[in-house]
């Protein structure tokens, strides 16, 4: 039986710490353990230091720290199997939900949007991060953490960008381009050059790299070029401007006619109000589109192009514009009812269903042209009335 002094216990304690152990409770365990062994096995007159060093040497293979590493490994991996299960379940679930959602979308059944959003959100925000975490934790990693991180990030961004694009949320294109950028400029070079250095992975790396480049290429070929977008916007803008021109021409003719024949002043009920509201809403859309108050005639002069964006957000339920649109819609309905009753055979009602009035026309230019057409139809009814007299 050896009796350890306080100094010797301090010495052991310091030595254990200096060997890189940081967990206090593990230090305490090992200190007590070593002390027990020494007290039990060293003779009272034995050489403390030599015996201690020989004893502690039997605790490890290369260094004492590996006990702490093993402990941390066990502590962090206790959820390993649960995580693996969740990963597989969420992956399978999201793939199934997404597929069902796509079938619903094609069939125009309700609920398609919810299914697709849930599918992609689970895939990109649960499945992919879990896959990454599990791959990173694997003891013998095939790839470096950097490659895994870049690959996962790019995959997450790409699937989110698809989701944003489908839902017409903002920043979809930014996400998509970032994803492809990370994939082609970060992931691919690192993956390729680390892969071909190793004879075992050489062929695999080359094939996968080719697949990635070809896949991105196919994807990019589906994307409209910036020049193509400008061209489309030019065509759409001038289409809108031509409609405006026709409207103004007609308005001018009616005004001129009334000037020379002041006695014939007459109009269908509600005409003026409808016309005014249409003008107001068009001005509102142009303002939201371009970010400032701008007249259609100024668009051409300043070479400002309208985009093929969506007006959905401009007419959100809580905005005053949505209220105005409703007013206009009910005005048109009363206009149709009142004037149909007069029995005038030349009266043509203005359609409400499947037009901008019930928010069916959601593209900016379709909505603008929709309003202009309403104005033109009102004007044509006017002209018919005047012609009858």
């Amino acid at each position, binding site marked *: 039986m050896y009796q350890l002094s*306080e100094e010797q*216990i*301090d010495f052991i*304690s310091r030595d254990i710490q200096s060997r890189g152990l940081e*967990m206090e*409770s*593990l230090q*305490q*365990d*090992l*200190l*007590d*353990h070593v*002390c*027990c*062994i020494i007290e039990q096995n060293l003779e009272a007159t034995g050489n403390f230091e030599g015996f201690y060093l020989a004893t502690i040497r*039997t*605790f*490890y*293979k290369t260094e004492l720290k*590996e*006990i702490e590493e*093993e*402990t941390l*490994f*066990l*502590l962090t991996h*206790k959820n390993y199997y649960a995580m693996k299960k969740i990963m597989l379940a969420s992956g399978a679930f999201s793939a199934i939900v997404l597929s069902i959602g796509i079938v619903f979308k094609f069939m125009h059944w309700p609920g398609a949007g919810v299914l697709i959003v849930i599918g992609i959100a689970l895939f990109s925000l649960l499945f992919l991060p879990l896959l990454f975490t599990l791959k990173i934790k694997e003891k013998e990693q095939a790839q470096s953490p950097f490659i895994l991180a870049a690959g996962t990030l790019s995959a997450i961004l790409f699937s989110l960008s698809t989701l944003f694009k489908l839902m017409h949320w903002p920043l979809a294109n930014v996400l998509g381009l970032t994803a492809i950028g990370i994939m082609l400029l970060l992931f691919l070079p690192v993956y390729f050059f680390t892969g071909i250095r190793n004879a075992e992975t050489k062929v695999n790396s080359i094939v996968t790299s080719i697949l990635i480049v070809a896949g991105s290429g196919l994807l990019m070929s589906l994307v409209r070029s910036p020049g193509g977008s400008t061209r489309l916007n030019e065509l759409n803008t001038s289409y809108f401007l031509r409609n405006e021109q026709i409207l103004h021409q007609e308005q001018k003719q009616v005004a001129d006619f009334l000037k020379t024949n002041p006695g014939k002043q007459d109009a269908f009920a509600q005409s003026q109000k409808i016309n005014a509201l249409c003008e107001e809403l068009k001005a509102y859309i142009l303002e939201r589109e371009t970010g400032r108050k701008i007249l259609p005639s100024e668009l051409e002069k300043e070479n400002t192009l309208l985009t093929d964006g969506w007006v959905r957000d401009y007419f959100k339920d809580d905005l005053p514009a949505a209220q105005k649109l409703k007013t206009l819609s009910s005005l048109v309905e009363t206009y149709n009812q009142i004037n149909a009753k007069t029995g005038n055979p030349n009266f043509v009602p203005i359609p409400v269903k499947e037009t901008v009035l019930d928010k069916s026309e959601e593209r900016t230019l379709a909505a603008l042209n929709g309003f202009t057409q309403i104005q033109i139809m009102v004007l044509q009814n006017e002209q018919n009335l005047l012609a009858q007299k």
Partner: protein
Amino acid sequence: MRSPFNLLKMIYSSELIKGTLKTIILKLLADNKRMYGYEITQKVKELTSEKIQITEGALYPTLHALEDSGLVTTETEYIGKRVRKYYSLSQTGKTQAQEKVSELADFMETMKFLLDLKPQQI
């Protein structure tokens, strides 16, 4: 040869014992109320006539993992300048100990049958 996990040094191959260390610890704690680390290693040595020797590198990580998952609780006592930690089973640990032991017993029966050591019905 020692396992890559540096689990056990023993007469039996470490591969054989690797999956049973938890069960051994839980069973010992079930029979002895509370034990400290050194005591556990000595007890195993004694009971197996030194055929199974648990290394420190295997024992403490496993004890900490058992504590972390709530199967084992600790009490500390000061022995002069050093701290001794006594490990004992929690309520869930007690049930786990029984389950683990009967699972292992069942496994050993199956192995006997599989390896044709003592042919019998299972």
